């Protein structure tokens, strides 16, 4: 652990985050994580289910998202609209969202009301019913949500890019589902999905804020203790994607005014001890004005107006992305050449100590900043736990970044950022058709 991190952790105002966390598990399998922060009279209640686009097959992509919508509707004790009516009437914020690896729901609520959130979430977990008529109208709502994607050219670029980047892995499917699948959902499939995935043994409950552990234990047991747990065995697609055999490329012409260039490389998942090095490289190459690609493309060559880079790995192998706004379509080949030159440089020359320290300092500062908001910390705990099986992962990642070396960076780049593994997506203006 570095001196600066030790300094921060030894400060009484920022004791190790672990000291504020408690966890327990009900007999039915529900895992519960609590985070105590009594500085504001607020509690964030979050429940995450291990189901998302990762679990979907062709023909019903997006069904987890459709189910998420339907769980706000009807239970045996609540009518459609009750969830929002009840939570709005006490001034709580609430929402649901679906992702690759999870479907999550949260309520941010005053500390004297948080039991209400538990009551509602317990009903959502086990007591939803899906009348045909309500399915019909919500199905249309989801179809409209899908159309919002259809009309945004950058969404098309993303969808096509992910699909060519993943030949077989479920990462190829958009969370919202492919249009044809969305049009063909049935209420039977929604019911089946609910029965299979929504139960305490397939969920993680995170409660953060002005709470007391004993009270949390008692209340969680009261509302969730009697719900039957049915462990779900999730398919493991970690190694399913074949090693890329050559560059893949998609060029999309749409009605756009500004081109977009997206370059990606498959990077290892969390079972690889070096996976976090991908984050360090992305930061050195594309985070901020002093990153290498920003300097090369925006400041020095003036070929682009923006550059960003990030490594997206939640669990299975993911992708490192470089997103660039070229000044014009014709400059794209030159921009690509410069990007690939910079990648060669990172393979062949050690990064400077200052570059590496900049990344490390940022991660350490973020460790403090992320705790500003109890909902933010709850999100980190929940997603970390559900994707890696251990909420401590996000803390371990900080230590791993702290220990990153220039040699690891060169090794990682040499292995993963190669021509054969490259995926390129280009979004450019439509060709003018002669009249």
């Amino acid at each position, binding site marked *: 652990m570095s001196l600066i991190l030790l300094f*921060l952790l030894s400060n009484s105002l920022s004791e190790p985050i672990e000291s504020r966390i408690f966890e327990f598990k009900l007999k039915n399998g529900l895992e519960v994580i609590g985070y105590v922060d009594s500085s504001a009279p607020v509690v964030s209640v979050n429940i995450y289910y291990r189901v998302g686009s990762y679990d979907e097959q062709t023909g019903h992509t997006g069904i987890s998202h459709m189910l998420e919508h339907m769980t706000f509707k009807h239970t045996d004790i609540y009518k459609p609209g009750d969830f929002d009516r009840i939570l709005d009437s006490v*001034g709580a914020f609430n929402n649901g969202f679906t992702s690759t690896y999870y479907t999550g729901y949260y309520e941010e609520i005053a500390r004297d009301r948080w039991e209400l959130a538990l009551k509602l979430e317990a009903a959502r977990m086990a007591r939803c019913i899906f009348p045909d008529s309500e399915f019909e109208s919500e199905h249309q709502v989801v179809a*409209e949500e899908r159309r*919002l994607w259809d009309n945004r050219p950058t969404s098309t670029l993303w969808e096509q890019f992910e699909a060519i980047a993943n030949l077989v892995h479920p990462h190829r499917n958009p969370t919202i589902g492919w249009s044809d699948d969305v049009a063909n959902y049935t209420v039977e499939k929604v019911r089946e999905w609910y029965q299979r995935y929504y139960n305490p043994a397939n969920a993680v409950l995170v409660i953060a804020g002005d709470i007391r552990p004993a009270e949390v234990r008692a209340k969680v047991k009261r509302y969730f203790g009697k719900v039957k747990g049915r462990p779900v065995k999730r398919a493991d697609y970690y190694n399913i994607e074949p090693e890329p055999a050559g560059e893949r490329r998609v060029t999309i012409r749409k*009605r756009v005014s*500004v081109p977009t260039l997206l370059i990606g490389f498959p990077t290892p998942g969390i079972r690889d001890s070096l996976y976090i090095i991908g984050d360090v490289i992305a930061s050195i190459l594309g985070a901020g004005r002093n990153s290498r690609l920003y300097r090369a493309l*925006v400041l020095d060559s003036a070929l682009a107006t923006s550059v960003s880079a990030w490594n997206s790995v939640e669990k299975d192998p993911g992708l490192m992305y470089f997103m660039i706004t070229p000044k014009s379509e014709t400059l794209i080949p030159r921009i690509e050449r410069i990007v690939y030159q910079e990648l060669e440089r990172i393979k062949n020359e050690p990064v400077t100590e200052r570059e590496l320290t900049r990344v490390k*300092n940022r991660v350490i*500062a973020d460790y*403090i900043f992320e705790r500003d908001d109890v909902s933010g910390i709850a999100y980190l705990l929940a997603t970390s736990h559900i994707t890696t099986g251990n909420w401590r992962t996000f803390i371990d990642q900080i230590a791993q970044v702290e220990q990153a070396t220039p040699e690891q960076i060169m090794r990682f780049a040499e292995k993963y950022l190669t021509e054969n593994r490259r995926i390129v997506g280009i979004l450019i203006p439509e060709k003018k058709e002669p009249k």
Partner: protein
Amino acid sequence: MKNNFALVILPFASCILMSANSLLSLPLYRDTLDNGLVILTYEDHRLPMVDISFTCRAGAAFDPVEKAGIASLCAQMLLRGTKSISADSLASILDFLGARYYSGADFDHSYVYLRLLAKDLSTGLDIIADIVLNPAFPKPEFDRAREEALTAARRSYDNPSAVVSMEFDRLLFGNHRYALPVRGDTNTIPKITIDDLHQFHQKQFVPNNCFIVVVGDVEHENIKDEVARRFGFWQRGMVESAVAPAPILPEKTKVKIITRNDMNQTYIQFGHSGISALNPDLIPVRLMSYILGGPPLSSRMGLAVREYAGLAYDVRCWFDRRLLPGAFRATVQTAKPKEAIAKMFGEVRKMHESGATPQELLKAHNYFTGSFPLTYSSNQGKLDQLDNLELYGYGIDWLETFPEKVRATTLEQVNKAAKEHLKPDHYIMVIMGNVTKEDLSLGDVEWIE
């Protein structure tokens, strides 16, 4: 680190602090330097971090229309170099500290935001003072920032929601600055010069037109001294008001269709002139518009359009919060525009004519008062609330009085607000998609070609 940039000489003795702390139960303080610069502090010692915002009470509303984008570009350029430190060095210092930072403008204000670890507070204040007092607007950086703004303006035409919103503003605000986006557009941005930025900065960035908010692991007494040491010498200047847009009330609803045959959904925005954020009806209007078109799952519009009919994913309405009267707007994206518009028109008319019910008002009271403390539980939330209460003059005790004001708002006030501030039959409306006039059955409206 501090030695990397030369600081102005700060005659501490010249600063007489005028304390104006209230008897608040919150650790919230407000002071004014004798040059008029206001300092607000919210002490929160949970974490060793600090959030700082510096705000000038002049934004895009002061831009000449033909050069719309000056305020925005000026704010962007504050982080692109000072008389003593280059843009690269500035970014290098802040990035090395792990800081988060940005600058920008809205119609009502220009701002710089900085979040850093508490141990770096002094460096942070040095940087804020330097970029606010001594911006250099270097030519290469200016050219680059202007090009970035131009790219962003061009990119907005790729987003259907932005296109509809820009056209709505153009039709509603006519020759007023509000007719164009804060950043300007592809016609105005190329006309902006470095000299324009210097003039805007010299005129508007004067201490009696600015305030600084600090939230986090700090002591107000110390912040007062630190700010006075850096800004106390700064000379007052003249402060002007921006010119309000002339309210437009078409005799009958005016509609413009933007035909886009490649879209499978129609984007709609309609509305009319709104109210100022200083209007005494602000709270009744906010309660009323929440009931009418606030949350998409439980407002009247949300229930009618989304929940009962499945016509859209998102439907809502709101009054712009601006110092000068902005717009009342309602928006939806749908494959069935005729049905959605009919329902939205119907809900506005019903609210205008019959008002809200006591149950709806009670729910709105509970939502506003219950959720308000959630908005400032984090440091970022506190900073946003303090920025707003100072910018709009709501008073230092706003965090405590706002819930009381909400609870004191009666059904009569809400219904009077609906009567006065909603104007069915007098909309400006923009519709974009694969639709024709005939598809919409809008009745007696004026079509804008």
